[in-house]
């Protein structure tokens, strides 16, 4: 019964994308179709998560082709959890962008292309999560990347084209690396099915394994923005439209992390590269946080904290234990929600103040108290202040790291604590300058609105300019903050779920047995 639902998470957004494309310039039906499609996907994902958690993972053979030959879709607890969180975030961002589009009269972004592309992005995300073979994972990545190329250059202004070019080229390079890795894995093992790859990998000589492992990690590392492959992210994300940045920041890098988790737990459960991954995690955390401290634009600060917090997730994966993976999974869920909320809040700030540069804005606490609250709560959560979810995630990670108990582990715990302080410092700086500082203190303060009001207080143009932030934008941000708070309230059950998901990933044997019942190591061709 549940199995029939699995393909729907891909098909519903795909057909909705086609429908919105046909609807072309009729904005209202487009919005309704897009919102309905994402709500449906969210509902299906929730049903899948509940079903999978109670009855175990679901394997679907597309077109009834038997497993090693056909395309296989696998939904285990990790995939189902990611489906729920990502469809929730995608829906919230869609509502935000509908609100923004309604207010801006859709003159800046070509509306006829936004919704179809956004739904295609959703399709790609869903394919990547439920893919049961490497090539299907590659196709999922490509679907979401191509959609993201269009979204990041939306409107085609000079700044976006410039940022888009960097993003597109770096993503292409990672795709080519991934494709080459798939080709080499096929050459070495004669299959691209994840379970079969996992089953046969241990027969390969260790040096060949390491080459394949490093190639896959490099390809996924670029997508996940792991240092030293993270330079492209703070360059390209901030210039996209606010809702697009929010969706990208929340989801796209986490899909890279998801792929790394799959690679580390299913294909290469052996610990050869774990110390190297830990060092990479350390550098990602520290370099990202230092970058965040130096920046003067809210979106860029958030982009750098995004990079730095990828390091925490990599740390959890690098431990190679059930506790580490569980902590990483909880941290991914927390980070998707909180980072998206912060970018949505930054979008609200941009709307209220006309800029996101903290040297040019001030006094937001007085002029927009609700926005201030909506920024403050996720900021504290990201900085790891108890009792918010960021604290719980970091606590879980540090406990799992301490279990390992060697010097490197304690260095990482120290660095993790330091980085969470640096994150807090960067965000408090935003708070002090943009929200707390009186607007009069801003050097050369020339707010667009103020000028307009002074020049022509009662003209219709001024009134249109000073209209309130659309309710839908605020509403979706409030919703995301509430989801973030619920991660704290329901941390127990959620952490339990993450733990069960991680236990299902302990070693590759469970996954192989699930997809290829009866296969034993060493059978081969």
């Amino acid at each position: 019964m549940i199995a029939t639902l699995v393909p729907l998470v891909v098909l519903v957004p795909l057909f909705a994308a086609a429908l919105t494309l046909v609807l072309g310039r009729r904005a209202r039906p487009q919005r309704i179709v897009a919102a309905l499609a994402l709500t449906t996907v969210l509902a299906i994902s929730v049903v899948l998560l509940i079903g999978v958690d109670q009855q175990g993972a679901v394997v679907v053979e597309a077109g009834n082709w038997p497993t090693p030959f056909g395309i296989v879709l696998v939904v285990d607890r990790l995939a189902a959890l990611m489906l729920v969180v990502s469809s929730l975030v995608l829906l919230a961002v869609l509502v935000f962008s509908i609100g923004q589009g309604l207010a801006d009269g859709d003159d800046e972004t070509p509306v006829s292309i936004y919704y179809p592309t956004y739904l295609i992005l959703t399709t790609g995300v869903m394919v990547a999560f439920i893919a049961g073979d490497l090539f299907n994972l590659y196709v999922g990545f490509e679907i979401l990347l191509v959609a993201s190329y269009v979204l990041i250059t939306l409107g085609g202004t000079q700044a976006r084209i410039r940022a888009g070019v960097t993003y597109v080229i770096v993503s292409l390079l990672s795709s080519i690396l991934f494709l080459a890795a798939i080709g080499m894995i096929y050459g070495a093992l004669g299959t691209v099915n994840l379970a079969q790859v996992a089953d046969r990998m241990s027969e390969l000589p260790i040096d060949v394994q390491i080459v394949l492992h490093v190639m896959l990690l490099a390809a996924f590392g670029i997508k996940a923005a792991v240092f030293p492959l993270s330079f492209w992210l703070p360059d390209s994300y901030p210039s996209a439209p606010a809702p697009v940045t929010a969706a990208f920041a929340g989801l796209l890098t986490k899909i890279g992390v998801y792929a790394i988790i799959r690679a580390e737990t299913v294909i290469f459960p052996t610990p050869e590269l774990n110390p190297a991954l830990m060092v990479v995690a350390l550098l990602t955390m520290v370099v990202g946080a230092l970058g965040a401290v130096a920046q003067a634009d809210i979106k860029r600060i958030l982009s750098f904290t995004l990079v730095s917090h990828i390091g925490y997730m990599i740390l959890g994966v690098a431990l190679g234990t059930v506790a580490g993976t569980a902590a990483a999974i909880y941290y991914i869920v927390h980070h998707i929600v909180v980072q998206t909320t912060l970018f949505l809040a930054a979008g609200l700030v941009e709307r209220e103040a006309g800029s996101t540069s903290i040297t040019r804005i001030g006094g937001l606490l007085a002029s927009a108290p609700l926005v201030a609250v909506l920024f403050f709560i996720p900021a504290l959560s990201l900085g790891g202040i108890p009792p918010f979810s960021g604290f719980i995630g970091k606590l879980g990670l540090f406990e799992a790291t301490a279990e390992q108990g060697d010097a490197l582990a304690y260095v990482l715990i120290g660095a993790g604590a330091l980085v969470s302080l640096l994150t807090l410092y960067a965000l408090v700086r935003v708070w002090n300058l943009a929200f707390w500082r009186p607007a009069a203190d801003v050097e050369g303060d020339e707010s667009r609105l103020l000028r307009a009001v002074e020049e022509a207080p009662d003209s219709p143009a001024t009134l249109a300019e000073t209209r309130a932030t659309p309710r839908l934008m605020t509403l979706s941000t409030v919703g995301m903050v509430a989801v973030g708070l619920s991660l704290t309230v329901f941390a127990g059950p959620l952490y339990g779920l993450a733990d069960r998901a991680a236990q299902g990933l302990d070693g590759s044997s469970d996954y192989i047995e699930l997809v290829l019942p009866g296969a034993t190591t060493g059978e081969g061709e």
Partner: protein
Amino acid sequence: MTVSLVLVVIMAALIACGVYLLLERSLTRVVLGFLLMGNGVNLLILIMGGRSGFAPIYDDDLDPAQYNDPLPQALILTAIVITFAVSAFLLALIYRSWRLANADDLTDDADDVALRQGTVAMPAEEVALDANDTDFPAEASR
């Protein structure tokens, strides 16, 4: 597994030229580099398919071992389609970039430059096309 040496040499040359071109700042060269590398990787997958053989269309008289492995070819077809779509998008992007800036070079990030110089970046002005900085004066005057 025996492999044709010619294919390996061609693949290596394609990928090497592709990497070289990808490192350029000129976007047109980057596109060419991407195309070369994409084709190089497609060749890699083809090589990984093993020895050559008959087309895998079922025939009673043929021993199954004489068929070619069809899966890598299916993978390559998919990869070619993706490369095609992405290069079309890239060309559109370059065309747009050229029309806006009259150059196809990749410029540094404005915020990065500002940070290096210790100044504050001003947000990029939305440049309207004017007759002086585009090759399409007719369109700019519209």
